[in-house]
C-alpha cells in the first residue's frame, strides 16, 4: 500500500495528541508500520498544534511534507486554513466549526478572518465541517471533541472501524469509555 499521510491540527489543550495516539495505536493493532510525530514542548494552552500520523507497510520519515497529506483533521477552522497546504489535491478535510480566538485576536492585535469557512471551501479538497463541540457535549463531555473528530474520519482510513473503537476503549478511563463511544459514533454520523 501507499503510505497514508494524516495531518491533525488544533489548539493546545484540545486533545490533538490523544487523537493522534488513537490513530497510531490502531495502525499498530492492524499490523501496519506507523510513525507519529508532533512538536510539543510548551505546556501552556492556546498555541497552534500540528501532528503527523503516517501509516504504511514501511514508514521512514516521521514528517509529512506539504502537498502530500491524504487527510487533514482540524479541531478549529483557522488551524484548518493554516495547514491546508499540507493536503494533496482532492484530499479529505474535516474540521470542527467551533472557533477559538488566538491570543493575538483576543488582545485586539489581529482580526479573526470572518470568511474562514469560505476560504476553506475554496480549496481543492473533499471538505466537511462539523459541529464537534455540540456533538461532544451531547456525548456527555465537551472535552470529547477529539474523539468526535476521530469518529468523523473512521470510515475513510486504511484501518478497520472496529479496531479504532477498541483502541479508544482501551485508552479511555471510567466514565470516559461511554462518553468516548458516543463521541465516536456522533462524529461518524456527522459526515
Amino acid at each position: 500500500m501507499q503510505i497514508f499521510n494524516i495531518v491533525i491540527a488544533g489548539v493546545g489543550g484540545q486533545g490533538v495528541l490523544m487523537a493522534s495516539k488513537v490513530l497510531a495505536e490502531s495502525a499498530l493493532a492492524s499490523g501496519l508500520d506507523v510513525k507519529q510525530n508532533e512538536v510539543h514542548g510548551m505546556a501552556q494552552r492556546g498555541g497552534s498544534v500540528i501532528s503527523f500520523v503516517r501509516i504504511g507497510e514501511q514508514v521512514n520519515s516521521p514528517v509529512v511534507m506539504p502537498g502530500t497529506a491524504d487527510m487533514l483533521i482540524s479541531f478549529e477552522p483557522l488551524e484548518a486554513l493554516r495547514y491546508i497546504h499540507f493536503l494533496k489535491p482532492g484530499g479529505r478535510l474535516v474540521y470542527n466549526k467551533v472557533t477559538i480566538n488566538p491570543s493575538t485576536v483576543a488582545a485586539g492585535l489581529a482580526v479573526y478572518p470572518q470568511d474562514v469557512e469560505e476560504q476553506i471551501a475554496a480549496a481543492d479538497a473533499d471538505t466537511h465541517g462539523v459541529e464537534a463541540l455540540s456533538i461532544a457535549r451531547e456525548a456527555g463531555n465537551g472535552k470529547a471533541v477529539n474523539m468526535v473528530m476521530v469518529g468523523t474520519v473512521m470510515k475513510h482510513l486504511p484501518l478497520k472501524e472496529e479496531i479504532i473503537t477498541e483502541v479508544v476503549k482501551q485508552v479511555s478511563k471510567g466514565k470516559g469509555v461511554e462518553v468516548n463511544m458516543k463521541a465516536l459514533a456522533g462524529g461518524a454520523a456527522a459526515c
Partner: protein
Amino acid sequence: MKKIISGNEAIALGFGDSGGVFASGYPGTPSTETLEEVARLGNVYCEWAPNEKVALESVIGGSIAGGRSLSTMKHVGVNVAADALLTLTYTGVNAGLILMVSDDPGMHSSQNEQDSRNYAKFAKVPMLDPSDSQEAYDMVRTGFEISEEFDTPLMLRTTTRISHAKGTVVPGEKIAPQIGEWVKDVPKYVMLPNFGKLKHIEVEARLLKLQEFAETTPLNRIEMGDTELGIITSGVAYQHVREACPNASVLKLGMSHPLPERKIREFAGSVKRLMIVEEMDAIFEEQIRAMGIEVEIGKNKLPLCGEINADIIRAALGETKAETASPVEGLPQRPPVFCPSCAHRGLFTILSKLKVFVSGDIGCYTLGALPPMGAMHSVIDMGASISAAHGMAKVNTIAGRDEKPVAVIGDSTFFHSGITGLLSMAYNAGNALVIIMDNRTTGMTGGQENPGTGVTLQGVPSRQVEIAPLVKALGIDNVAELNAYDLKETEAAIKKGLETPGPYVLIDKNPCILRYKIRKPAITVEPDKCTGCRACLKVACMALGLTASGEKQKVRVDPNVCNGCGVCAQMCKFDAMHVIEGENNANL
C-alpha cells in the same frame, strides 16, 4: 510485544531492560519524558536534580558505586554539566554511564540550536545517534556495553524528531539490575594534575580504540544501492534520506563519534557522487573533507540552520518538486500564551504598564516578552535574569542612571541557577528588584516536580524548600510576598521594590493552575455596561474576544476557556465583568 512509543519512552524502557540502576536529569524539551517514563516503569530509581550539573555528577557517583547510570537533559543542559563531563571523560566509569542529550534543530522550544555532536568531539567520548524509536531502545544497551568495555562515558544523542516521534519497538530481553563493586581507586578518580596527565594519555589511546571499534560495529552500516549517488548520514536525517532517495547507496552512522575513517573511504570510493546529509553543524563533513575525501554535496547545498526534511534533500540534489499549494498568507498567528487564569498574566500586565526594564529567564513567564505585554527585554540562559540584572544595575550606577532593573524568574529556574546570582547580588551590594514566581512546579516543560513541590519524581513526599528564608539566608533583607492576581497590590509592591534602594525580592506563591488543576467559575460580561474600550484585552487572555462586528464591538468571554481569575475584570472601569456563579466548565 511490539509497541508504538516515542524515542524518549524507548530510551526509558531500554534503560530498565538493560539493568539500569540510577537515573538523574533536569527537565528540558525535548528530553523531559525520558525520566518521567523511567519513573513510570516503577522498579528503577530515578530523580530530578535541581540542574544538569548536579544530575550528571550524581550519576557519576552512581557509576563509581557500581550501578549502571543514566543522566538526561536537553542540549543547553550539557553546557551546565560540561564542567563535570570534561573531567568525567578522564576518570572513565566503573559501571556503564550514559549521558542522554536531546538537541532541538529548528528550535521548537529552545533558546539556541547548538549541535551536541560538538561535545562528543570536545570531550573525546563516543556518541550514538539513533534514527528511530527501535534504535533508541537498542542503543541504550549497546551504549552501556561500549561504556563499560572502553571505560568511558557515552553520549546518546536524540533530536526533537527522535525524542517525540513515535515508532514501533520490539523490546529485547530484560536483564537484572547491573550492580557491581564500589571501588576506591585514587589515580582513577582523583583528578589531581599528576593523575590527570596520565589519564589524558589514556583518553587519546581510548579514542583510537573506539575508532577501530567504529570500523566494524554494525552501528555503522552501508546499504548499497545505486552507485551513482552515495549519502553519509545519521539520526533522523537518515529517515529523510531514505524517503527522498530510496535507491541511493547510504552509509548510516549509528555512531556519530568517533568516525570510521576506513569505512568512509571504502564507501566514498564505491560511489560516483558523495553527499553528506546532517542536521545543523558540518561535523561529519569537516572531518571527512579533512580525510582528503571529495564531498560534492554538503553544507554548500544544505542548511546549517533548522531541520532537514525530504524536500530539502531533493532540492539539494536539484530535483524540482511538483507545484503544491502555498501556505495561506496573512492569517493571525497563534503563539502559545499564558494559560487562562495563570498568575503570570497579572504580573506582566503591571510590568508592561510600568515600562521598566525586565531581565527575564527561561520558563512560561518568558512569554511575557510577546505582544501585547512586551514586558521582557533580555532572556539568555537559565538563571541569567538575576545576574544580568545585577550587571545592569552596576553599570546604571556608574552611568548615573537612576533606574532599577527588574528580574523575573520562576521557582525551578531559581533552584537551577538563580540562587548563586542572588548570592552575588547580596554580596556585591547590588540594586535590582527580583520577582520570583514560585508556582511550585517546573511549568514550561509540563509540570515536573522540583525541590519546592514537596514530592519527588517517583511520587514520594519530600522536603519542600521555602524560598523566603532561603533568600534571607543569602543576605537579602528586603523580602516581601506578592499576589499577582491582585493588580493594585502588585503595582504597589513593585513600586515599593523599585523605590527601596538595594536588592529587593518579591515572591508570588500562587500555584500553577495547570499542574494543580485549579478550576474557578467563569467571568461574564454585561453588554449594557461594556463600552468596548478594550482595556481588559491588555491582559492577553485567550478567553477574551470581541462580539461579532456590529455598530460597536463589545468584549465577550468564552466560558469554555475562562477560568475565572478575574484579572480582566480588574481592568474594567465600568464594572461590566463579573463571575458567573455555579459550575465552571473551563476546558483546560
